[in-house]
């Protein structure tokens, strides 16, 4: 479903991605792990067609993300690292605005907006201006925006950043409860989160993929001993 081939990304002279290739099947939940500055956000921006790769290609369902950008964007729900919010809008207006831009049929918009507000536990603050919400609530509005059109592919850049433990739990539930044939890519620094929801983990170090494997495989060392994801991560990413 998502296929990248030898992606390289340069920002001036710094190389943020080095020959990144992978393939993600429909229905997979994949975690991106990596230290600060490893290139997770850059990779996600390339997948969503926001940034072009310096070389290499990304195809989603066989469509090139840059050449067939509109078709690709229709399939993707994307939560950027900083939730992209308009501070002066109310929560409901913003979610509705997102729905309009993302081709939710005009007739069903109101129902869909209310459904998503409920799913993201935003009903209580739906009438409030976004700028006065706490960080966690703003993050949830960002998530609401990403899932408003029931996208087949969800790309979430640190979705639980700033959420309280209860909300983190709920976001996990939300992601798990998405229909089975939906593809989810999630980046996070909370390893336990990955352990709970991801089936597959990609560890990125300085723009290179140093591990790409099923979670269960990663958690076994060569001798077949169990190891924690933290151990694996610390070993591979330094």
């Amino acid at each position, binding site marked *: 479903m998502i296929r990248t081939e030898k992606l390289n990304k340069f920002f001036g002279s710094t190389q943020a991605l080095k020959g990144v290739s992978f393939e993600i099947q429909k229905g997979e939940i994949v975690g991106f792990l990596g230290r600060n500055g490893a290139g997770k956000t850059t990779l996600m921006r390339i997948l969503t067609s926001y940034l*072009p790769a310096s070389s290499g290609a990304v195809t989603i369902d066989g469509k090139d993300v840059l050449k067939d950008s509109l078709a690709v964007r229709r399939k993707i729900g994307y939560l950027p690292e900083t939730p992209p919010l308009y501070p002066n809008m109310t929560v409901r207006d913003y979610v509705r605005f997102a729905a309009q831009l993302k081709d939710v049929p005009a007739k069903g918009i109101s129902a869909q907006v209310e459904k998503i507000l409920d799913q993201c536990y935003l009903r209580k603050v739906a009438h409030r201006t976004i700028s006065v919400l706490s960080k966690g609530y703003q993050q949830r509005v960002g998530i609401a925006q990403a899932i408003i059109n029931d996208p087949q592919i969800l790309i979430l850049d640190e979705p639980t950043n700033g959420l309280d433990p209860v909300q983190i739990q709920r976001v996990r539930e939300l992601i798990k409860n998405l229909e089975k044939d939906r593809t989810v890519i999630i980046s996070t620094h909370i390893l336990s989160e990955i352990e709970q929801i991801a089936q597959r983990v990609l560890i990125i170090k300085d723009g290179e993929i140093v591990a790409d494997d099923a979670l269960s495989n990663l958690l076994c060392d060569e001798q077949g001993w169990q190891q924690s994801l933290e151990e694996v991560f610390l070993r591979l990413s330094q």
Partner: protein
Amino acid sequence: MNKIWAIARKELAAYFQSPVAYILLIVTVSVFNIFFYVIIDNNQEATLRDVFKVMEFLFVFIVPLLTMKTFAEEKAAGTMEFLMTTPIRNSAIVLGKYLGSIIFFTLIILLTSIYYVIVEFFAAPDRAATLTGYLGIWLEGAMFIAIGLFISSLTRSQIVAAICSYIILFLLYFSLNFIQYTQGAAEAIVRYAATLSHAENFAVGLLTTADLAYYLSTILFCLVLTRISIENRLWR
């Protein structure tokens, strides 16, 4: 089409939520008010011709304040990343934003039509000339907005956008004053580019295709440049 409208509505709502917009509204109407009385009193003539000239000058000052945030703010706040990853064409983003600014600007202009009603009430003004005069200042404002929109799309700083728009609008507005230092082709170009040489015709009721073409083509040109500019950020 719906998406263009959705963006335009969002822009309009943002205008009405910002104090800057209200200040501009009040300033425009007050300036119109003051000059209306001064000019009518001086000329003893039932025409808005000279008031229009003042308005054009005023737009040089207010339009950059209206347009500076259009794209710069979205870039700075990261919402550009949202807009550009939703399934909407770049040209629709540009048109939506342009439409939003234009509607707000039109509202300001409509408010000043009260004064026309006053003139109409007390005297018999040249209706055709007033209409073309309004069309003239509206086109002028629409062109300034297109320029401001383009400049705003080049930067993430609203201040930079405002200052650069001021520079360009001042050049366009005052270039006629420097015409004596130019010759031949340069003179023709300056005369053509100067907004004043076109706006004046409208104020006296003269509607020519050359003037219309000047405004409309500049608007189109700026909108196309804006689209290229937001597309181009992809290729950095």
